[in-house]
């Protein structure tokens, strides 16, 4: 069957796309894949806070002075960020730009004020009539690291759908995945494994398998790059409520059906869940969550799956001692 595989480097990671179609030629698939990839690259240019000429850099510089106009899709992305911030009681907050600056993740940034750290989504106003964004306070800065990859996948997915592609897998740095349709050899959907790299030496241990058919998956973990603000070791996800880096053993994944802005939502929620450490009460059933933790020895132990798509999540047979709660 005609196939196209492409990759683009964006948002500090590698995005890969695989497209299958019986109805189209490989030349066509490659061209569509490239358009989807170009969409991702354009978003990187607009949303990276490490580029002086990006829209995010402009927002961080000027949104406290005057409102900045957004296009419809980007405005909707910010609305998702707001929604997740509210429903997670602040565990997800895109206004973490300031603490990230103070703690050395970016030399470049507007608003870092020599140690004074300003966080708070309530300082960020989205005006739907004009489709603008503005800040109520100087010194606020946004960082879209917890949501941009998901949004990029949604935009790329839209390009594929508009071109009539029904069968494709897209992922951004393996932390956000969109599965359209299913691959030729597996009607049940795209099989994605979440594995614990820390336990990789143990062969097949510590693996979850998620089957994605017109569904998205986003994964976050607290581990990874360390910061040391005032000798406090932490990972590269921040708890906006403190604000300090989230330390500890958690990981979280979110699975939802592939609707509009689904990957955006899943990306934001997986970030929020790592901070929260557990699924919040009242979260809609359509958002399936997998929240887990590592034992003191660094092995994956308990994990909890909850939501409409729970059946899409299975433990690898080698996975030891899972505690599953299914609704």
């Amino acid at each position, binding site marked *: 069957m005609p196939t196209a595989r492409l990759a683009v*480097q*964006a*948002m*500090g*990671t590698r995005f890969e796309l695989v497209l299958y179609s019986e109805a189209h030629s490989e*030349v*066509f698939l*490659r*061209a*569509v894949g*490239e*358009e989807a990839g*170009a969409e991702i690259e*354009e978003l*990187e*240019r*607009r949303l*990276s*806070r*490490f*580029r*002086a*000429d990006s*829209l995010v*850099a*402009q927002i961080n*510089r*000027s949104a406290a002075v*005057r409102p*900045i*106009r957004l*296009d*419809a*899709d980007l405005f909707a992305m910010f609305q998702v960020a707001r929604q997740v911030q509210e429903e997670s009681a602040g565990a997800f907050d895109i206004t973490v730009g300031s603490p*990230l600056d103070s703690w050395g*993740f*970016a*030399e*470049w*940034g507007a608003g870092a004020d020599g140690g004074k750290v300003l966080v708070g989504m309530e300082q960020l106003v989205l005006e739907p009539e*004009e*489709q603008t964004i503005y800040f109520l306070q100087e010194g606020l800065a946004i*960082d*879209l*690291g*917890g949501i*941009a*990859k998901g949004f990029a996948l949604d935009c790329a997915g839209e390009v594929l759908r*508009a*071109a009539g592609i029904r069968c494709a897998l897209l992922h951004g*740095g393996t*932390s956000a995945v969109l599965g359209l349709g299913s691959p030729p050899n597996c009607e049940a959907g795209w099989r994605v494994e979440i594995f614990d790299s820390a336990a990789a030496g143990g062969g097949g241990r510590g693996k979850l398998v998620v089957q994605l058919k017109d569904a998205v998956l986003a994964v*976050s973990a607290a581990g990874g*790059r360390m910061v040391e603000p005032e000798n406090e070791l932490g990972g*590269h*996800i*921040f708890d906006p409520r403190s604000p300090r880096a989230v330390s500890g053993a958690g990981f979280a994944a979110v699975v939802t059906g592939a609707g509009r802005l689904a990957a955006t939502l899943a*990306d934001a929620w997986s*970030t929020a869940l790592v901070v929260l450490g557990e699924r919040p009460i009242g979260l809609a059933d359509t958002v399936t969550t997998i929240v887990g933790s590592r034992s003191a020895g660094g092995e994956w132990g308990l994990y909890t799956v909850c939501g409409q798509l729970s059946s899409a999540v299975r433990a690898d047979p080698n996975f030891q001692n899972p505690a599953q709660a299914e609704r």
Partner: protein
Amino acid sequence: MVNNSRNEKSASRRQFLQTTGAAAATLAILPDLAWGEVLRLAEPLAVAVIGVGRQGRAILGELQKIENVRIVMICDVDAARLRSGQRRVKGAEGVADYRLILERGEVQAVIIATPTHLHKQIALDALSAGKAVYCECPLAQTIADCRALAQAAQQSRMVFQTGMQGRCNPVYTLANSFKRSGAIRELISARAQDHRKMTWRSAGGASPAEQQARNWKLDPEVSLGLAGEFGTQQFDVVHWFLGKYPKSVRGTGSVRAYDDGRTVADTISCSFDFGKGLYFGYDATLGNSYEGQYEQIAGTMGLIKLAWSHGWLFKEADAPTQGWEVYANRQQFHNAEGITLIADATKLASQGKLQAGIGLPFPSLYYALAAFVKSVAEAAPVACSAEEGMRAAIVGICANEAVVNNSEVLIDEAFFKIEG
């Protein structure tokens, strides 16, 4: 997950700043702009964009940063692209026929971002309709069309700007002032490249005719190839810095990367003769993206390297110190002329400290559009005229001809003559 692109950017900047053995000092060229302030017009200006493919949509994005510019209409023959364009602009009316835009009295200026071979007619009609025109480059597909358009623009009272971004780019204009003040002394040579990894093929189009229309860049009857489509912008930068136009161009090209039946070369190389032994070498490819797009001008005292959002001056060890450099030992400074210099850019880059964050606060395209809008609304001088656009496009057309025929093409002064 948090964005880790900083390391990516450091690596590519490091790649960029390879000094020669002799280069004594590397200075990053960065104009002192009212940092990131957008243009604000006193009165509202109503504009329309004709052609909302990728470039057209980028134009929509940049125009919306300018205060008091209203995009009232957009046009595209493709319904899906038109819808995509409308998602970029709240409240813009979408049409498939550009003449509806030209008939609308409230539209004061149009931006043309259609395929190259369609520029001429639309631009001529727009001028006749009394609209100011910003026309994407290359200006037109044939030498005759370029001259006809330049003539019409000259005879019209309307503002006409060609979309060549170099002349509006603040890094480039600052670098040009260095060159004019003798910073690199005698010209030795120039080179430029445009490396990208993309097929240039467009998907979609319901009928074979539509597919062919969408794939105009790969149609040898219509396309100006990499030299015309990519190169023209860069050739114009070189003309501007060298202060003259080439006498002839040699070219070669081949299909190296995409074995899909195409005949338009995906990899080309051109050599332009500026006379008296001054040559400009250009290469472009769709098959490899290493180091992207840049131009460099070499002189006996230094080399200027320009990469759109960034610029550098590499000085030779025996180059005299310029007045402003006395202070350049510090890492950042502002002098009386409002120039920010970052000395020792190489060292900073190797330490990962010359971040992508240092560079222009807006994309190059923004400055070109802002200049146009200022010309229309405030009678500012036109940044890049139709005649300059014509000259650059003609050089691009000749370069493409050289590539297609694997030959040398003479660039006759007579080509640049505008009748009347």
